[in-house]
């Protein structure tokens, strides 16, 4: 292949020598959105399956984190915008081809739904909670009546949100590392894993903790499978995608990716969870925090490495 050896003369600040478009705000948002999606999807799923009483923490308590995650994530997104005062333009348009438009509308649905879900369970945390106004009590009664429908909406939109955090990146043909459809399912699995880890930390019920350790194990297995699959896809693809994969296979992101994401974020927590299920006593906080950390690092590394990968010309 004939490669251009020396290229000079570009002076697009913030573009050359490689992109500096997206920073910690986007990585953080992708992580927070993914984790919130994981928490809400798990809560909705167990509620729909009628297991609310078996998994009280997952259905009633953990979802209280989600609105905070979503609001902080939205703030990060807002900080990232360069033309902040025009943000409302997102909601005067529906662009089916733009994942960012999908994401904006998904957040528009899931954020209020997450607040309503918390409102329905607030008495589990604050037993003396008083809504003060009658219409708020009426509203609570209304949503309680249609709680199952609400759970379905929450489940569907949580899954869309989880996938979208990956699809957002994979829509960019110009960045070979991002341009793989594996990112959607990978980020969804990673978000679900972080959500399960949050329940693992909060739950005091040993049965529930065991169940979530098992769920986390399965999700870590899926993530590892998807990561292997992603690299197989890259290495069997075009030169630019092979070079994108090289960033993680000897290139500048090799150490951070394999140590922080795969070893610390997946293999060690999986090992600890297997030991825990095998009757060894291990503080659950350790694997759970490692999983959440790994999920965060996955977003940071993929967002930054993707901006280094490019077409050759």
């Amino acid at each position, binding site marked *: 292949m004939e490669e251009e050896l020396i290229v000079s*003369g570009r002076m*697009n600040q913030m573009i050359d020598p490689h992109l500096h*478009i997206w920073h910690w705000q986007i990585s953080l948002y992708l992580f927070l959105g993914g984790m919130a999606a994981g928490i809400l999807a798990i809560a909705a799923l167990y509620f729909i399956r009628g297991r609310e009483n078996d998994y009280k923490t997952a259905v009633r308590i953990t979802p209280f984190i989600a609105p905070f995650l979503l609001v902080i994530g939205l703030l990060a997104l807002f900080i990232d915008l360069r033309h902040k005062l025009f*943000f409302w333009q997102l909601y005067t348009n529906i662009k089916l081809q733009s994942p960012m438009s999908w994401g904006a509308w998904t957040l528009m649905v899931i954020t209020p739904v997450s607040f309503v879900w918390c409102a329905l369970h607030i008495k589990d945390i604050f037993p003396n909670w008083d809504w003060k106004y009658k219409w708020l009590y009426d509203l609570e009664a209304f949503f309680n009546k249609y709680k199952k429908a609400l759970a379905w909406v929450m489940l569907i939109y949580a899954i869309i949100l989880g996938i979208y955090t990956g699809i957002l990146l994979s829509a960019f*043909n*110009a*960045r070979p590392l991002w341009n793989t459809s594996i990112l959607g399912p990978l980020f969804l699995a990673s978000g679900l894993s972080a959500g399960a880890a949050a329940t693992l930390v909060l739950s005091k019920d040993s049965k529930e903790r065991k169940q979530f350790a098992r769920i986390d194990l399965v999700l870590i297995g899926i993530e590892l499978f998807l990561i292997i699959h992603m690299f197989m896809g890259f290495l069997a693809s*075009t030169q630019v995608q092979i070079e994108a994969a090289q960033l993680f296979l000897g290139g500048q992101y090799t150490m951070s990716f394999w140590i922080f994401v795969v070893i610390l974020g997946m293999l060690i927590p999986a090992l600890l969870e297997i030991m825990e299920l095998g009757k060894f006593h291990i503080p659950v906080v350790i694997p759970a925090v490692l999983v959440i950390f790994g999920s965060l690092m996955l977003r940071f590394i993929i967002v930054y490495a993707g*901006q280094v990968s490019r077409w050759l010309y």
Partner: protein
Amino acid sequence: MRYAMAVDTRKCVGCSDCVVACQTENNVPIGFCRDWIVEVTNGTYPQLEMELRSERCNQCVNAPCVRCCPTGASHIVDGGIVLVTHNECIGCGACMASCPYDARYPHPDGYVDKCTFCIHRIKNGLSPACVAVCPTKCLYFGDLHDPNSEVSVVLKKRKSKTLIPEAGTDPQLYFLI
């Protein structure tokens, strides 16, 4: 109507006059550029050859920036020119991330900006500023659908290439080789 530009890489001397003309014409903020000169060295020593190219937005037919834009600020107008409506742009950077040519930059005023083929000039029958000013006359501009336009004639006569055709964007900036 399909506006296109052809750049003669054999006539270009890399003087950057096109860049300066563009910056003056379009009030491009200091440190950024809508067009630029690339010097490329190819080959294996001692068989090296250098190419000079005046590059800008490729005004793609299948424009990924337009597809990714969540608000519709990036759009294609008659003649195939890709434009950004300033007060619809939220500066999210999706179009910049999606452009394989890295042709867009974030304007300090917030919106994302890029080459417009000097649409304000061509509407008045003038050529883009870069074309008008080029001292070696190595830039050709016109309507590809008109067989007699400068750009159609030169593209018929000479061999040409586009940049990263494998990205599937169908670029309309041609380089005569």
